[in-house]
C-alpha cells in the first residue's frame, strides 16, 4: 500500500502520455480543425454570435439523446426508436398543451413519464427476454412513428404556450444591466465555469500526484488548462454578445456534467461498462446485468422525451414528421465519438464532441450552400472514417 507501489517505470512518462490519450485529444483536435475550416471557408460566419447560438439550439436535442444512446451502446445494445419517440412525445405534448390546455410544467412531467414508460416497455423485452435490441427498437420505431401520426390525426398542432417555447427559444434572465451588446450574467457564469474547471482539474491533479499516481506532464496540463479556459471564455464571449446563454444550453451542460460524472465516477456507471465489456463475467461478479440494461433503456426513453420536447418547443408546433432520422445522427455521434459497437467502450465527452462535429458540419455546409444530397454523403464518409481510425488505432 505504499506510494511506491503505484508509481510507474520512468520510460512511460512524458511523451507516451500523449500517445496513450491520442484518441481523446484527437477527437477535440478534429472538432477544432473542422470548426477552423468552416470558419475560414464561410468567411467567419460560423462563429458569428447569432450563428453560434443557432448551432447550439439546432443540436441540443441530438446531444441530449446522444447521452442516453451512449449508455445504451456501451451496454452493447442500440436504440433505433429514439427519433420516433421524440416525435411522438412532441405530439403528446402538443395535444396536452394545445388541445387540452394543460399547464406546461404538468405536461412536461407527464411527457417525461411517458418517455420513461416507453423506454421501460422496450427495455423489458431486451433485458429480461433477451430479444435483440435492434429488433425491439426497430419495432418501436414503427410503432411510435405511427402513434405520433395517430395522436396528431395527421395534422400539425401548434402553437405552444409561450412559457413552453421558452424551453428552446428562451435565454437565461438578465439580472444586470447590459454592457453594450454583452450580457453580463452569461459572462459571469461563463467566467466562473472556466475558473471552476481549471481549479477542479488542478486540484484533482495535485491530489493524484500526492498519492504518487502518474499525472500528465506539467507543461501539457498547463497548456490544456489554458486552452480549455480560453475556449470556454471565448465561447461565452461570443454567446454573450448575442442574447446570452440559451436556456437549453444550460440544461444540456447540466446533463453533460451529470452523465460524465455518472459514467466515470459512480458504481452504477462502472457496472454499465462492465455489462458491455463482458456480460457473463459481470453477472458472475454479482452485477444485476438485466436490471442495468433495463435501466439504460428507461433512461434513453426519458432523454428521448426531453429531446422531443426541446425540438417541439423550437419548431413551436408538433408535426407527424418530427424526429424522422434523428436516431441516425444520434448513433453516428456516439460512434464518431469513439464508442465501440461491441459495447464496453465509449465516453460521454466523446459522444458530445461527436454530436458537435456532426452539427458543425451540417451548419457549415449549409452556409456554404452544399446541397442536402452531398451533405449526407460527406457525413457518411466522416462516420466511416472516424470508426476506421479507431479500429486502426486499436490494431496498432
Amino acid at each position, binding site marked *: *500500500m505504499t506510494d511506491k*507501489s*503505484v508509481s*510507474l*517505470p520512468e520510460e*512511460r512518462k512524458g511523451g507516451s502520455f500523449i500517445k496513450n490519450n491520442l484518441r481523446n485529444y484527437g477527437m477535440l483536435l478534429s472538432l477544432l480543425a473542422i470548426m477552423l475550416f468552416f470558419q475560414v471557408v464561410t468567411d467567419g460566419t460560423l462563429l458569428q454570435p447569432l450563428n453560434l447560438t443557432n448551432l447550439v439550439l439546432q443540436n441540443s436535442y441530438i446531444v441530449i439523446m446522444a447521452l442516453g444512446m451512449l449508455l445504451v451502446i456501451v451496454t452493447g445494445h442500440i436504440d433505433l426508436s429514439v427519433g420516433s419517440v421524440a416525435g411522438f412525445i412532441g405530439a403528446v405534448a402538443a395535444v396536452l398543451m394545445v388541445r387540452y390546455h394543460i399547464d406546461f410544467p404538468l405536461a412536461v412531467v407527464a411527457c417525461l413519464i411517458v418517455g420513461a414508460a416507453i423506454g421501460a416497455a422496450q427495455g423489458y423485452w431486451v433485458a429480461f427476454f433477451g430479444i435483440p435490441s435492434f429488433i425491439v427498437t426497430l419495432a418501436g420505431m414503427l410503432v411510435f412513428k405511427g402513434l405520433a401520426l395517430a395522436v396528431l390525426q395527421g395534422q400539425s398542432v401548434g402553437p405552444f404556450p409561450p412559457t413552453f417555447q421558452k424551453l428552446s427559444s428562451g435565454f437565461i434572465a438578465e439580472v444586470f444591466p447590459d454592457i453594450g451588446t454583452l450580457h453580463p450574467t452569461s459572462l459571469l457564469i461563463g467566467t466562473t465555469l472556466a475558473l471552476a474547471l481549471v481549479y477542479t482539474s488542478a486540484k484533482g491533479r495535485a*491530489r*493524484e500526484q500526492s*498519492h504518487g*499516481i*502518474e499525472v500528465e506532464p506539467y507543461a501539457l496540463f498547463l497548456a490544456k488548462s489554458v486552452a480549455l479556459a480560453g475556449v470556454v471564455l471565448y465561447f461565452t464571449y461570443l454567446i454573450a454578445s448575442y442574447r446570452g446563454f440559451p436556456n437549453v444550453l444550460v440544461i444540456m451542460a447540466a446533463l453533460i456534467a451529470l452523465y460524465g460524472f455518472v459514467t466515470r*465516477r*459512480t*458504481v*452504477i456507471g*462502472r*457496472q454499465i*461498462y*462492465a455489462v458491455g*465489456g*463482458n456480460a*457473463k*463475467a*459481470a*453477472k*458472475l*461478479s*454479482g*452485477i*444485476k446485468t438485466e436490471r442495468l440494461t433495463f435501466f439504460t433503456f428507461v433512461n434513453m426513453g426519458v432523454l428521448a422525451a426531453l429531446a422531443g420536447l426541446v425540438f417541439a418547443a423550437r419548431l413551436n408546433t408538433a408535426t407527424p414528421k418530427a424526429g424522422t432520422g434523428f436516431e441516425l445522427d444520434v448513433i453516428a455521434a456516439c460512434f464518431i465519438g469513439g464508442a465501440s459497437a461491441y459495447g*464496453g*467502450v465509449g465516453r460521454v465527452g466523446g459522444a458530445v464532441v461527436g454530436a458537435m462535429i456532426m452539427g458543425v458540419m451540417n451548419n457549415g455546409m449549409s452556409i456554404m450552400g452544399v446541397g442536402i444530397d452531398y451533405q449526407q454523403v460527406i457525413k457518411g464518409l466522416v462516420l466511416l472514417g472516424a470508426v476506421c481510425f479507431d479500429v486502426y488505432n486499436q490494431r496498432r
Partner: protein
Amino acid sequence: MLEMRGVSKSFAGVRALRDVNFTVNAGEIHALVGENGAGKSTLMKVLSGVYPAGSYEGTIVFDDEERRFRDINNSEALGIIIIHQELALIPLMSIAENIFLSHPPSRLGVIDRETVYRRTGELLAQVGLRESPDTLITDLGVGKQQLVEIAKALSKKVRLLILDEPTASLNEADSAALLDRLVTFREQGIASILISHKLNEVAKVADRITVLRDGRTVDTIDCRTEKVEEDRIIRSMVDRDLAHRFPERQAKIGDPVLVVEDWSVHHPLHPERQVIKNVDFQVRAGEVVGIAGLMGAGRTEFAMSLFGRAWGYNIAGRTKLDGREVHLSSVPAAIDAGLAYVTEDRKQFGLILADDIRKNITLASLDQVASHGVIDDIGELKAASDYRNRMRIRSQDVYQEAGQLSGGNQQKVVLSKWLMTGPKVLILDEPTRGIDVGAKYEIYTIINELAEAGKGVVVISSEMAELLGICDRICVMNDGAFVGEFAGKDATQEKIMRAIMRNERIARSVGQARRVGELQS
C-alpha cells in the same frame, strides 16, 4: 522431413525467437514444450506461413527444399496443417460441412453432397469418431470437436500435423483417445508436432521433446534412447529447480464452513433431467477439498448452482455457512454470504478483457471503494495495487488491460477480484488450466495461503496430479453424484479412476449412461 534453421523473429523490438533450430523427422511425434511466452506458438506460426517469409530470419527446409511460405495456403499445400487451441469450427454447421468448408468436392460450383457425405464418413472412421456426418458441431463435446478438426486436417492430405494444446480442455479419457490417434498416424507416416503443458502425456507419446525457453531451444530429448524425466523437462523449461511441484503446507483444519445437504439441480433446457442428484458436501475451515471427475460429471454445474443459482433449474437442497442456514438465491446473495467462484473459463466468464487490471479486481466489491455510489478513485487504485503486489501480478501497472496479460497473471487478477470480496469459501474451477508450470506453482502457493488464513477452498480439476498434490481431501464426482472420497494422503490416480469407472459400469448397466456434453448454457 522438416528442418528449421536459425529462426529469429522480433515484434517491435522484442525478440520472440532467437536462433531456433528445430527438426522433425518423417513419422515421428515431436513434442514442443515451454512456458507461456517461450515462443512455441510464434515458431509454429513461422512454420505455417502465418508470418510470411521475409518477416523472420532463418530458413525452413521441408522435403529437402528451402521453402518460403507467403501465407497459410502455401504450407497447407505441402501438407503442413496446424490445429489451433481455439478450434476453428462453425458451430451451426454439420461435421461434413465443416470438414469440406474451404474446398468442397463440387461440379460446376454445385457441391457434390454424396461425395462429401461418403468421404466424411471415411475420415470420421479414420479418427475413430462415431457420429453421423450430418451432426451439428454444437451438439458435440470439445473432445469430439477436436477429432473433427483432425479429420479436417486428414482431408487435406496432411503430412505434418501441428496441434497446439489439443488436450487443454479435454478430460483424461478423451486426451488418451486423442493421443492414441497420433500414434496411429505415426504408423501411417504422418508426423506430428505436439504443443502441450501436460508433461505426463508428452512423456507417454513423444519420440522427441524440444524445450523452448525465452525464444531459444534449450534442450532436445530423444525419448527412444533416454529416459524421460519430468523434472528434467521442468527444470529446462523454467530454469529453476522445481524439485517440488507443489508447495508444502501444514493443514490446520477447523469446523465446517460450508455444508450442503441433499442438493439437487435440473438442467435448464431439459427440466426433466436431474444433473446433480441429491448430493451432500462439506468444506471445513482451512481445508482444501478437491473434486475429481470426468468432463460432464457435473462438477461445474454443482459449483455454479451453489454460487447463487448461476446455473440450473429447479434447484433444491439446504446450504449452511458457519453453521447457519443461508439461502443463496442470487449471485449477489452468494457473494454477500461469503462464497466466491472462480470460473473455469476466465476469458469468457471471469474477466473483462478490454478493461484494466484495476477495474477487474474491484468489480465484485465496488461498494468497498465507494461511498454513496461514488467511487473513490484513489482508494480503488490503492486497493488494486495492493492486490497486484500481494498476488505478484506481473504487469506494467494496474492500468494494463487484462487481455494483454499471460494466463497465469490473468488468473491472479480473477483471484484478486474474489479475495477482495472477503469470502469464507472459494470454489476454484480448473484454476491452472492453460497456465505454465511456474505460474501454476504460484497459484498453488496462493491456494495454500488461503487455506492457512482459515478459508475453505474447493478445487475442481481435471488434472489428477494437481488434486493429489494440493488437496487434503478428494471427492470423486460422476454422473451428478459423489461416488468416492479419499483423504489426500491415501488417494492415488488409480483409486480415483477406479471409483469413476465402477460407477460408470453401474450406471451403464442400469441403462442410464449419458455423456453430458454441455456445460454452461
